[in-house]
């Protein structure tokens, strides 16, 4: 196991540069939105975080399927790491959404479909972490979590339709003003934010998986020492 992670370092540096560029574009390059004003600038990172959150849960589903089919630890590490990182991004997206909603819609929370499904996904994957914490045998925990990871992701499209129709039946006046037209500069800024936050996801995921690998190595060393004693 290498202790100097050159690729990880390069990835971290690229991510930092991309984040700086995206931040700069959000505040300096993107135009001031006509009706919402500067508040709208939170939109770029908000949308990007939500996208990364869903993408992370998708990756977690792939990891879960991989673990159920192949049974190798690395797939489970991928699923768990991606869910932990995805939860952080999804929480950030929901919080930023609320901050945006307050001045624009006049309330921190509405049952707007995209907001609602993000919150439901948060609850689903918090349950995933609770499940992991509640199983002692690591192999069994990984297997149960993989089952949950697959089943959970399958409910996403059904959730999406259910929540959308649910709100369209009780139309919400607050959300009708939520759509806005994107100018080219806004699109560029959104693209830059997407790239920057996706890189951030990749960088953090990589570190989290590395940490998981070390934790596994430490666990097996502990078992070895307990069995054989320190001297042998």
């Amino acid at each position, binding site marked *: 196991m290498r202790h100097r992670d050159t690729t990880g370092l390069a990835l971290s540096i690229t991510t930092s540069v991309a984040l700086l560029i995206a931040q700069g574009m959000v505040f300096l390059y993107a135009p001031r939105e006509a009706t919402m004003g500067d508040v709208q600038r939170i939109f770029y990172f908000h949308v990007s975080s939500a996208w990364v959150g869903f993408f992370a849960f998708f990756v977690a589903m792939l990891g879960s399927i991989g673990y*159920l089919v192949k049974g190798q630890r690395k797939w489970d590490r991928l699923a768990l790491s991606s869910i932990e990182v995805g939860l952080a991004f999804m929480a950030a997206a929901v919080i930023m959404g609320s901050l945006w909603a307050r001045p624009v819609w006049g309330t921190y929370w509405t049952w707007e479909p995209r907001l609602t499904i993000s919150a*439901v996904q948060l*609850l*689903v994957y918090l*349950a995933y972490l*609770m*499940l992991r914490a*509640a*199983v*002692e*045998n690591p192999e*069994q925990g990984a*297997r*149960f979590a*993989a*089952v*949950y990871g*697959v*089943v*959970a992701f*399958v*409910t996403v499209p*059904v*959730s999406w*339709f*259910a*929540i959308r*129709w*649910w709100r369209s*039946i009780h139309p919400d006046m607050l959300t009708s003003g939520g759509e806005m037209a994107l100018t080219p500069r806004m699109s560029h800024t959104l693209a830059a934010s997407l790239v920057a936050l996706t890189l951030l996801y990749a960088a953090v995921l990589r570190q989290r998986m590395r940490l998981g690998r070390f934790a596994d190595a430490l666990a097996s060393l502990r078992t070895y020492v307990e069995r054989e004693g320190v001297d042998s």
Partner: protein
Amino acid sequence: MGHLRKIWAVVVKDIALECRTWEMISAMLIFSVLAVFAFSFALDLRGASARGAVPGILWTTVAFAGTLGLNRSFAREQQSGCIDGLLLVPGGRAAIFLGKALGNVAMMLIMETFLLILLSGLFSVPLLRPNVLGVVALGTAGYAAAGTLLAAVAVNTRAREVMLPVLLLPLAFPLLIAAVQATGGLIDGKTLAEVSGWVRLLIAYDVGMAAIATLTFEHAVGA
């Protein structure tokens, strides 16, 4: 033994066991009556407001009473060691899942029959109609499919009974939305065709969940 006979054997075993103890049905029944009373007191239900709240009360009660029954259905498998015997049947894991799920659907349907009678009587809402019963059956099938898989997982965790609702409810949200909307529409006098979008969503959830749960169940049981 054919696949259908294996499934049937599991269903018959669960029903026979239930007939001897009545522990699952009785717990669900008493809980559902308590829940309906708690809702009536908490929401102060009268007249029109009761009518609007009935679909919600029906499905929240089904969801919570359902987790009680589903927990029991695997807890007693494990206490008696019966699940270990079942798992020895060659190639029978999908059959165990379908058998357990069907058994759970049957228990929940019995509980729901009483619940529907109770709600119709208390709030004078016409619930005992074929189309409402159809929606109830569809919602129950999907809930029991997801619940049976997750109860098998939950019974092997440290938190046991606490784990099932935490795992199941967030995954059941789309099912609950669709079931409440379809039931509410039918109570308001809409035809089945008018709520067909919700009914199709229920069917999609049922089919998708049954397929995924049958495929993954073998990983959810055993040490």
